[in-house]
């Protein structure tokens, strides 16, 4: 991500330190993760201590300090999905991708994450891949869905 674009984002928030989280979220959304150079630039421009940025990017779940995979796999582990067997979907995803929730595989193919509730409780258990919702999914179907991604 180039410095100019980062500056644009910071400027759109009038360079205010109180917008630190909003600025980081925008960089995260555009770039998929937060590279060191981006954090340095934000720190310089907003004049906030490194320690505060460090704490924020590790406190909030939305931020990633490492590159993400090409496909974002989200398993809903909200209560409704949990009682309808989300754990078994998660087990299956972890088995197929070979990584645990919160990780990205070495080929940068999948990033796997559990999410609190995506608000489609009628469809539980729910698996989301790149924003597409697969509802009332079974472990067998999970395998088929993941295999369809390159």
């Amino acid at each position: 991500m180039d410095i100019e674009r980062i500056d644009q984002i910071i400027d759109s928030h009038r360079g205010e330190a109180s917008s630190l989280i909003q600025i980081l979220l925008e960089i995260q959304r555009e770039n998929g993760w937060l590279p060191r150079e981006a954090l340095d630039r934000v720190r310089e421009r907003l004049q906030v201590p490194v320690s505060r940025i460090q704490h924020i990017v590790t406190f909030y779940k939305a931020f990633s300090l490492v590159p993400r995979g090409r496909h974002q796999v989200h398993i809903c582990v909200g209560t409704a999905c949990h009682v309808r067997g989300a754990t078994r979907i998660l087990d299956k995803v972890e088995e197929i991708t070979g990584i645990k929730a919160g990780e990205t595989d070495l080929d940068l193919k999948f990033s796997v994450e559990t999410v609190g509730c995506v608000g489609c409780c009628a469809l539980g258990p729910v698996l989301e891949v790149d924003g597409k919702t697969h509802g009332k999914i079974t472990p067998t179907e999970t395998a088929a869905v993941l295999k369809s991604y390159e």
Partner: protein
Amino acid sequence: MARINSPEKLEKARQEILSRRKPDAPCISICAGAGCLAFGASEVIDAFKAEVEKQGLTVDVDIKKTGCPGFCERGPVVVIFPEEICYLQVKPQDVPEIVSQTIKEKKIVERLLYVDPTTDEKAIHESDIPFYKNQQRNIICDNIKIDSKILDDYLAIGGYEALSKVLFQMSADDVLAEVKASQLRGRGGAGFPVWRKWEGTRNSPGEIKYLVVNADEGDPGAFMDRALLEGNPHSILEGLIIGAHTIGSNEGYFYVRQEYPLAMENLGIAIRQAKEYGLLGKDILGSGFDFNVEVHRGAGAFVCGEETALLRSLEGKPGEPTPRPPYPAVKGLWEKPTNINNVETWANIPLIINKGGAAFASTGTEGSKGTKIFSLVGKITNTGLVEVPMGITLNDIIYKIGGGIPGGKKFKAVQTGGPSGGCIPAEQLNLEVGFDELTKAGSMMGSGGMIVLDEDTCMVDVARYFIDFLTEESCGKCVPCREGLRQMHTILTRITRGEGREGDIELLEVLAETAKEASLCALGKSAPNPFLSTLRYFRDEYDAHIKEKRCPALSCKELISYYIEPDKCQACMICLKKCPVDAIEGGKKKIHVIIQEKCTNCGECFEACPSKFGAIKKLSGEPVPPPIPEAERTFVKKSKEK
């Protein structure tokens, strides 16, 4: 649209919008809420657009992408006005028939109607369906009538009338008196009287005051705020501006959970349009009153639903709660007096102004007035959002509205109040729903999550699940929450794994007391509730896990075994092929046997076995019978024996 700068012009604009609309012309409303979209509503909307054009009806028929009406179980939901014909589970291939039959010929497409499972009767109108019939929908009812991306839709149903009234006909004291008369309590969790919060912030010294809409709906299994943000953002905005004028604030914030992109989008559009119309920003409706709002996205931290943590997050800091007092009403955002209310609370305000506080208070129980939206999920036939009067019984919600438990299973408990709520057992289904009533039963209202659990749900696992969630989400600042929950989680996990020890319950009780009494914020103080309430009503399940290493619900993976009953097995090979670890022996005409040493308890075979055979059994707390000897495994079809 030119800015509207007087109440008369607002009324005129409304009349103009209505005059442009033909009340008898057909309008196809399709729910474009997150649930229906996941069911494929986008494709249905596209199909309607194409079909209407194909049949040359574009000018006469209005197609609306609306908010969530609540019946997520049967999405995509389509309602056709003015007749209010309700079609459920509509697929793109149904669309040509709907357009040619219902729109053109005014005939009903029978197969898309709701069929009552007990009486087999069909319901044509939304209001005939038991799911809706037994609700009292004051807030969520507008969702299906409007496209939230179009302000005119909101104006057409009387939107911003309450604001106009507040700005030109009422004093701030009048508004406060009305809110006080309504006895409205905060819908976000704690149920604090709204008027008292407003009055506190209003009376706090200082020129600058802030208002905040808490839209950080983080409870897993709850999505009512999302439905309002997506489906009717102007109602929230209108409530907020009314609050601002009453309290004396010129600046407000929406704090929206980042997992809700559609809510962010619709809210952004609503704010832009309100500004264009002169309903927000400088000199609102020509009254001289200024109010601006900004939208902040949450960044993924459940604790930010706690008001002091939310304020720190708005300031661009980690969301760690700070001690109260000082309360936000005195010292909140950037140390200025701040009033925070939840989405649903703000959405109730226009209603209270329009209908009057007394009318609002005529519904409900002694301590809880008005209606409340619940998200009814879990082991329930009709999953969805339900709006009911306070004081309705749990029984009515679960059976009359929710349609009971699917699959002929037995009801076990209903979990209310989000992760820090509690479980209420079958004996208390006659409990009237209200803030104080639920608290007395060991649970709480919370923001309105209602998760139904059936006989297959293990209550120890439910406690473990919520404590796990809260341990993950603890901010880590104070010891009783951070360390106490960590230890509670360790102990509960070992109990569900069959490694529970004598004394574990007592240890959990001590930790629960410490977290409850000594934690800094509401997250920690209420975190032990899932444990305490399950222990209160389901102690026998804890004892079974610890003393007998048995899970009565046959749910805890480490405590169950799968076994094929030889006399029921039809040697069909289905389970054998499904087993991912080749733990099933057998063949064609050879009774199948599970090799217990290889089995990982994944349950695939259990689900694969055709229900007419039902040959696979879960066992817990008892030894698995030895496999039948090789010699006896040849399968003989019984029907042919005779």
